[in-house]
């Protein structure tokens, strides 16, 4: 091989390394996670799906491998305290009806789902318990108590593959989410797909674009040192493209949450994950 060819090959391999996600494997507390798998059939434009963990720096990645190092567990601990806290006119706490958060193993992987013709997210289920069983005030969608509780409940499903239903009753919601995913919005005129499907692995200024998978939600973000709900994250994305965000807990975001979850079918639930 001539020298010129060697240089071309070397340059090519460097540029690939710069844009591709890394190839490390994630093991949390000895349990190995699926962070890369072939894309489900309904995701037409991707061959392989990757967890957002694969796009982060090695220091950030390391935080997620140990439950003590993972700062999200501060919030999981808060939720364990909240679990037994009696609130509301009915004088009940979560533990009055539920034996423990363990009984929700598998729930995170299936949500959002359709119940009585409505698309419900985990936040809806928690607030339904709070208002109807506990007769207490509902929690705000992305406030600390709510994200702590969704972290605790989501943690019970860690390691299970994401598996949301997208057919039957869920089909119209899934279609609505898909339409939103491919709709250009805001002053920058960008859709979700422009960044997270066409350009994942690339840098957008200083940020490494992931595929926008939500298998690790809620997410502890180093930028704000708290748990971030999926809808809070959508809101941040929409502000970045200079669009007017939809309401957290509204039908648009819930449909998008369902569609995004379906794009990650087969990835392990990583809740509570650590991202930057």
């Amino acid at each position, binding site marked *: 091989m001539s020298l010129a060819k060697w240089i071309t090959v070397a340059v090519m391999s460097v540029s690939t390394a710069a844009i591709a996600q890394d190839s490390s494997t994630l093991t949390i507390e000895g349990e190995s996670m699926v962070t890369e798998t072939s894309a489900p059939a309904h995701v037409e434009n991707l061959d392989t799906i990757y967890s957002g963990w694969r796009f982060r720096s090695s220091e950030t990645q390391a935080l997620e491998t140990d439950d*003590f*190092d993972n*700062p999200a*567990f*501060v919030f999981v*601990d*808060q939720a364990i305290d909240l679990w037994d806290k009696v609130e509301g006119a009915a004088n009940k706490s979560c533990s009055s009806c539920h034996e423990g958060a363990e009984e929700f193993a598998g729930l995170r992987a299936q949500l959002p789902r359709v119940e009585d013709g409505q698309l419900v997210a985990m936040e809806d289920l928690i607030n339904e318990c709070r208002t109807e069983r506990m007769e207490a005030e509902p929690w705000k969608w992305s406030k600390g108590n709510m994200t702590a509780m969704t972290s605790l409940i989501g943690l019970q499903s860690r390691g299970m593959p994401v598996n949301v239903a997208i057919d039957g009753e869920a089909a119209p919601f899934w279609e609505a989410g898909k339409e939103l995913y491919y709709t250009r919005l805001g002053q920058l005129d960008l859709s979700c797909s422009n960044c997270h499907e066409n350009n994942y692995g690339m840098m957008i200024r200083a940020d490494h674009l992931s595929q926008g998978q939500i298998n690790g939600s809620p997410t502890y973000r180093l930028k704000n*040192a708290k748990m971030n709900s999926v809808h809070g994250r959508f809101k941040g994305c929409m502000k970045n493209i200079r669009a007017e965000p939809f309401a957290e807990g509204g039908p648009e975001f819930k449909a998008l949450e369902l569609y995004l979850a379906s794009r990650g079918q087969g990835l392990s639930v990583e809740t509570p994950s650590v991202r930057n």
Partner: protein
Amino acid sequence: MAKGVKPRVKVPKTAAAGEKITIKCLISHKMESGQRKDDDGNVIPRSIINRFTADFNGQNVIDVALEPAISTNPFFEFEAIVPESGEFTFTWYDDDGSVYDTSKKIEVS
């Protein structure tokens, strides 16, 4: 007393004599810097953990001074060689006078 303060410590339950063990300590704490203002424009008084110590069987192992630029939920990780079975005591000192402590036993064979 600051709200939501909870110390968490990870010490191996057993170790061999002379073995180097890793100890991880984290306390959930706001670490209020004293630079911020509340909604009415009043300065929120500084309230940080200003000192952290670890003792083993009454003997000091590590003593750390903390300054206002340290992040919320300060985390320490250090290594120690444990000569005998005993108890680690970890203490955090808050600006507002509160002292938080927790202890962990370790068996050395």
